[in-house]
């Protein structure tokens, strides 16, 4: 079979897959959804006690106890510190690993272990890493920073090596044939080409980590979550609601800031269908 024949048969196969593949995919998605709902018995959920629960929560939380505002802001600040330091350490430590994990830059016997390493760090969510560090080094923000750092390495490391593998290969080939070393290729071609994606991913990671740093306090790893858990233990819902509102507002502000900064580094992403 000639190269041309092979190309034609591959194209025919692709067309057939497109014709029959899409309806099959939709059916598969639908069947899987119904199956999952059935297995989880979601259709038998009892909502009858919901209204009573809501009434109880409303009565216990309203009016909010505003005297905890200062405690909440202090907790929020600690959460932001944990997210910032954890993100910074995580991004810096992930860079060398993600470079080695990129298939277009290193041979498979180096990329494979690097990918496994990143996958292992991603297996546990940051809250479970926080449980481990609380056991190892005790409660407090240090456990939170370590937990966020480890999870960040695993999570952003994957995004980074995917960004490196998506780069245009011709500058790498051209500069490589000029006699550049691997270090020079990474420093002068790979990182400058990927820098905007890296900055954008770092912003996204920080935003993500703020939410998670708030949650990991629940297991004793510092931040505002630590205070939320404390008030929940004593059923002080009027205080809990104030702290939750602080987290909600902080996440909204950071989301918006992060979006604007990422748009700036990636170019204008504000294209709208409404135009």
């Amino acid at each position, binding site marked *: 079979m000639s*190269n041309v024949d092979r190309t034609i048969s591959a194209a025919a196969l692709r067309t057939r897959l497109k014709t029959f593949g899409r309806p099959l995919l939709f059916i598969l998605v639908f069947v899987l959804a119904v199956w999952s709902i059935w297995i989880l018995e979601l259709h038998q959920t009892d909502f009858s006690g919901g209204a009573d629960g809501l009434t109880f929560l409303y009565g216990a939380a309203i009016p909010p106890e505003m005297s905890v505002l200062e405690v909440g802001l202090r907790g929020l600040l600690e959460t932001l510190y944990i997210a910032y330091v954890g993100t910074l350490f995580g991004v810096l430590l992930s860079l060398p690993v993600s470079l080695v994990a990129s298939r277009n830059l290193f041979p498979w016997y180096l990329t494979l272990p690097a990918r496994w390493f990143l996958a292992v760090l991603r297996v546990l969510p940051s809250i479970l890493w926080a449980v481990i560090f609380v056991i190892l080094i005790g409660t407090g923000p240090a456990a939170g920073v370590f937990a966020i750092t480890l999870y960040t390495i695993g999570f952003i490391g994957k995004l980074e090596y995917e960004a490196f593998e998506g780069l245009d290969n011709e500058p790498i080939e051209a500069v*490589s044939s*000029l*006699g550049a*070393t691997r*270090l020079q290729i990474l420093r002068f071609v790979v990182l400058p080409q990927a820098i*905007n994606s890296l900055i954008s991913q770092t912003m996204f990671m920080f935003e993500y980590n703020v939410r998670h740093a708030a949650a990991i306090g629940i297991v004793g790893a510092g931040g505002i979550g630590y205070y939320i858990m404390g008030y929940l233990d004593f059923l002080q819902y009027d205080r809990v609601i104030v702290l939750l509102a602080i987290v909600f507002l902080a996440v909204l502000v950071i989301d918006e800031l992060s979006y604007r900064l990422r748009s700036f580094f990636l170019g204008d992403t504000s294209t709208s269908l409404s135009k």
Partner: protein
Amino acid sequence: MTRSSPPIRCRGLSVGYDEDPVLEDLSFTVGNGSTVALVGRSGCGKTTLLKTLAGILDPLDGEATVLSTSLPQSPPPGELGYIPQSLGLVMHETVLTNVLHGRLSDLGRMRSLLGRFPADAKTEAREAIERVGLDGYEQSRVKELSGGQRRRVAIARAFVQEPRVLLADEMLSELDGETAQSIVDCLVTLQQETGMSVVIVEHNLDVAKDISDTVLRLGAGGIEDRIESVSTREPVTQQSHE
């Protein structure tokens, strides 16, 4: 390597991807200071051959020596220049930085890490930028330049590198006649000054004859024809696009 031995020599060379040969049994030499043009229809293997000579693809069979080094080993750093079809420039970087890439082989490990080039390299790079007519664009990002200007950046990089052999893939495609001529002039100047040998991929036979000493017409899995041309270096006319 003595200057008299040809910088590129191929004997029974087969090139292709994944053990699937595109061109087979190629035998040719490229002499010192000469220009060889590779012509042929799209997909005939021009770029594959060039990538093999550049050390990006391993030869499938036969022998190829580039600057006294048998492929797939790499020739001494800095002696081989390669300009791929899309020029291989780092689009987010400035013109000056891209041109300085031609001097990477002189840079030590610490300077590489810090991204610091010596002052004489910067002076040379600025001179090269001026010679290709891009003075005033040193700090412009390559992505902001036109296609013709980007090609000049690639040539300025070669000026700074001064390679013994330059491999260039379709340097003149999609350019108007005037711009193409200025690119050819830059290339000829560089060749006259450094005595480098050039292998250029060009799809237009008339242009190929005009700019080279030998034209190798590729097709049907090998070299179909060899044309020894008397290069007149006359102005390049409007390019036909594929």
